[in-house]
C-alpha cells in the first residue's frame, strides 16, 4: 500500500500482559516516529528511528516500553507488563529525511488496558 500501515487497529490487554504494536512505513521513508495520543490530547513523542538506528528514545515513559526497527523498515513498539495508564492511541509516522519533510501517519492502534 501507499500509506503507513499499523496493526492491530484495536488491542485490549489485561493489566500485566505484554503487547506488540506493528508499523509498516511508506517505502523509502528513512525516518520513523512513534507517538502516544491520550484521549482529547495531541500526539506526544515517544521515539525516533533513522533507518535501523534508534536516535532518540527520550519520550518513552518507562523501561517497560521498547521499540525496534531491525532492518530499517517495519517497526515494532513493545510494551511489557501493561498498566492502565498505558491506554491510549499509538500512532506511527514516517517521513523522508529532509528539512521540510512532513509526517505521514498511520491509523494508529488503540490500546485499552483493563
Amino acid at each position, binding site marked *: 500500500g501507499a500509506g503507513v500501515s499499523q496493526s492491530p487497529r484495536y488491542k485490549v490487554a489485561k493489566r500485566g500482559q505484554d503487547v506488540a504494536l506493528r508499523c509498516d512505513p511508506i517505502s523509502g521513508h528513512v525516518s520513523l516516529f512513534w507517538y502516544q495520543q491520550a484521549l482529547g490530547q495531541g500526539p*506526544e*513523542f515517544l521515539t525516533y528511528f533513522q533507518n535501523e538506528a534508534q*536516535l532518540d528514545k527520550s519520550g518513552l515513559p518507562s523501561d517497560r516500553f521498547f521499540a525496534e526497527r531491525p532492518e530499517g523498515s517495519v517497526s515494532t513498539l513493545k510494551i511489557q507488563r501493561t498498566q492502565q495508564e498505558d491506554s491510549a492511541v499509538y*500512532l506511527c509516522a514516517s517521513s523522508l529525511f529532509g*528539512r*521540510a519533510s*512532513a509526517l505521514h501517519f498511520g491509523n*494508529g492502534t488503540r490500546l485499552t488496558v483493563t
Partner: protein
Amino acid sequence: AQTVTQSQPEMSVQEAETVTLSCTYDTSESNYYLFWYKQPPSRQMILVIRQEAYKQQNATENRFSVNFQKAAKSFSLKISDSQLGDTAMYFCAFMKPYRISGNQFYFGTGTSLTVIP
C-alpha cells in the same frame, strides 16, 4: 522547550461559511516549520497545510490558508466554504528541522471542529 497552544477546544461553523482556528507557539528558534494536521474519526492524521518560517508569504492550499505572524508567534488556519467533511480534530504542530535526532515535532492539544449542515 517548544510549546504549542490551541486555545479553542471546540468550534462549530455553518456549512459554506468561513472559520478560523488559532494557534500560538513559543520558541527561541529562528528556523522552523509549522503544520496543520486534521484527524477525522478514522484517527489518521492528515496533513492540511505547511508553512516555512523563513517565508513571509502565507501558505494556501485550496480552501485552506494560514495567517502566519512570525513576530507574534501566531499561526492560524482559515477554512473557507466549510464542508461537512471538514469535521475533525485539527492539530497545530511546530517542527525543528535537521537535528541529529530527527525532525522534532511538537503538537498542540487540538481544536474539535464541527461543520453544521
